[in-house]
């Protein structure tokens, strides 16, 4: 029995804790401050870089606290989850009360609340209360959704009210945050992203996933017909443009230019212009310079082809190409790797860096061999992704903005006009207003109503 009460007490306390605005204030501030960490410590870098930058001791601490993948860390995600739980519990906790406020069976107005309001204006008139009653009720009925007149000892009170429903605005905002969370969850569970480097003229349907480097076959393929880079006169890049064709079952179904900021959307996939690069063309020229005479002989060559050296000195096979060939710690840049098979003796490797035509002198053969007339081909670097969370996330944005407009710019307002005969025989008109959900600007509204009432009374005076 006793235990039972205690446990109810505890659940109540947990519930109230999770429903409190105090918790949300603490959480929001904590999220703000902890988020700073990830902007000061570079995220997702190599361990060696961290060790060099922070030293053994701090690296150990940072690693334990997950500071290198801060926004994905268990504790940051926990804070976010707690905020979401806070929103849910708080909404459930308050919705029924708010509902009763918004849709009351019979709204109750308490005159003393208005008399105590800080937003007040008063005026006096020589006309009797009854004489101006229809004018005032008419005004209130016109400008407020609900209005009601009540008798008082020496006159009457006219209440006017509007905007009860705007109290739902905050709930709309909070729901939009839940929807946003759902969208982000779907993005992270079902979304994926990869890249495809596509040389001009080639077709591919394989992309390489970003995090795992796994290859994924798409059920359509892309062909790059052209790629171009434009520059401004100052040399800044102006435009990267790929001409792409989409093929389905080998048949072309669409053709489009792809530029940055204008992705292609196709069957749930988004295709972005991401990078570009160059690869060497298929054919080039091998130049053989006779070290004795200086005479040069050129021969056309292509990959994996056997080329006979001048003067029957043997054959060369071009075997491989590297964009950044590393030779004893030096980066030689784009380099062809070949095998030289002499007339007699063992085959030996031949290194031909494109940008260093004299490199082969080192070998001290009869000829110095170099690469000439190399033509490059562009490849376009595409980023391809699929993210079913996007429509949900963007919808939540729209709802959130709508909720803000309702909460911030449409208010629940109540105005009371109290008309009473004074002992002096004059009539006192007291205009007061309350914003039950404490919106600013009530003072201004009350002044405006008072101005209108004054004008209405003055008009009656004249006529």
């Amino acid at each position, binding site marked *: 029995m006793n235990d039972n009460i205690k446990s109810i007490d505890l659940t109540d306390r947990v519930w109230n804790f999770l429903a409190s605005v105090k918790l949300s204030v603490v959480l929001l501030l904590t999220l703000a401050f902890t988020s700073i960490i990830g902007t000061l410590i570079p995220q997702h870098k190599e361990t060696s870089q961290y060790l060099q930058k922070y030293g053994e001791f701090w690296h150990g601490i940072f690693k334990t606290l997950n500071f290198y993948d801060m926004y994905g860390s268990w504790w940051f995600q926990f804070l976010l989850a707690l905020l979401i739980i806070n929103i849910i519990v708080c909404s459930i906790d308050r919705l029924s009360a708010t509902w009763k406020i918004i849709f009351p069976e019979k709204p109750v107005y308490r005159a003393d609340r208005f008399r105590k309001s800080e937003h007040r204006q008063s005026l006096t008139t020589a006309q009797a209360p009854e004489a101006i009653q229809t004018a005032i009720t008419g005004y209130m009925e016109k400008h407020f959704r609900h209005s009601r007149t009540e008798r008082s000892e020496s006159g009457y009170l006219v209440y006017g009210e509007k905007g009860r429903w705007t109290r739902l605005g905050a709930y709309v905002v909070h729901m939009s945050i839940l929807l946003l969370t759902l969208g982000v969850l779907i993005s992270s569970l079902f979304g994926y992203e990869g890249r495809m480097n596509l040389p001009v003229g080639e077709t591919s349907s394989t992309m390489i996933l970003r995090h795992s480097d796994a290859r994924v076959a798409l059920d359509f393929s892309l062909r790059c017909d052209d790629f171009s880079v434009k520059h*401004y006169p100052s040399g800044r*890049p102006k435009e990267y443009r790929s001409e792409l064709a989409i093929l389905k079952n080998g048949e072309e179904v669409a053709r489009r230019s792809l530029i940055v*900021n204008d992705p292609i959307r196709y069957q749930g996939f988004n295709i972005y212009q991401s990078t570009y690069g160059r690869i060497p063309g298929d054919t080039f020229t091998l130049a053989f310079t006779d070290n004795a005479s200086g005479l040069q002989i050129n021969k056309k060559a292509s990959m994996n082809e056997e080329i006979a050296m001048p003067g029957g000195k043997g054959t060369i096979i071009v075997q491989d190409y590297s964009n950044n060939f590393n030779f004893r710690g030096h980066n030689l840049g784009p380099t062809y790797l070949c095998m030289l098979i002499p007339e007699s003796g063992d085959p030996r490797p031949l290194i031909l860096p494109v940008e260093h035509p004299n490199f082969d002198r080192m070998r001290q053969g009869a000829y110095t061999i170099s690469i000439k007339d190399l033509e490059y081909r562009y490849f376009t670097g595409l980023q391809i992704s699929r993210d079913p969370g996007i429509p949900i996330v963007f919808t939540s944005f729209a709802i959130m903005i709508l909720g803000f407009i309702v909460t911030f710019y449409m208010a629940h307002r109540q105005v009371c006009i109290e008309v009473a005969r004074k002992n002096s025989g004059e009539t006192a008109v007291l205009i007061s207003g309350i914003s039950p959900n404490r919106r600013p600007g009530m003072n201004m509204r009350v002044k405006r109503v008072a101005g209108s009432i004054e004008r209405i009374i003055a008009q009656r005076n004249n006529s």
Partner: protein
Amino acid sequence: MIDSTSIISYVTFIFGASALFYAIGWIFKSKTAGNLGTAAMAIATAVNVGAFILRWMETYWVGYGHAPLASLYESLVFFSMTIGLIYLFVEYRYKFRTIGVFAALSAFLALAYASLPSVGSQIQPLMPALKSNWLIIHVMTYFVGYAALTLAFCASLLFLIKSAGKNPDTGVLGHIPGFKALDDLTYQMVMLGFLFITLGLVTGAVWAEQAWGRYWGWDPKETWSLITWFIYATLLHARLMRGWEGKRLAYLSVLGFAAVLFTYFGVNLLPGLHSYL
């Protein structure tokens, strides 16, 4: 031919003069000085708007043709313009001028900063990632938000100045609007600012999805704008709790503004995608 950059250097001084007039009007309770402050503010803002439009045209004359919202310099010019516009509206609505000192000073400082050689006022062509209509919407909404939050900060500052005095209702402090009115204005401006920085955050996400294929990436500028957003969300909720009024809310508004400043200027010291603005 006179260009927008030299017009802006005049505007800087008119904002400065406005701040001075407002200050004199406040301290000596001089209506004439106050009127001069308002006049200078109105002129500076109007000419600032003109210079903004002129610069837009200039981008076409040099052959690039884009909204002048693509560099730090251009954003500062737009920022001072929005501060002027929102402030004038507030002055008209609330009928008090002490805030004008800080509003005009903020606009003056923004433009003084813009005139530094390191900021660079040349018209630059847009790089491919910036060529988007979202650039205009994103930057405009953010800076309307920032301008409103700057005014919230000015009101909070006045609140703290007034509450620091022994006799807040007499002398120079007495010329400051009442606590209630300042609190009201802070809240009003935070609501406007919060709405617009949310619009900025949201349009930024939509744009990032188009340009980079992701709507959120925790890059430092994004993260700092989220930090700012969290702080102002805190302020809005703190206000709902009894006991969190007046000074404490003013401190939160100052904290939020510090986050705005860091998001705007400080993040460039950190590495990230947004480093161009």
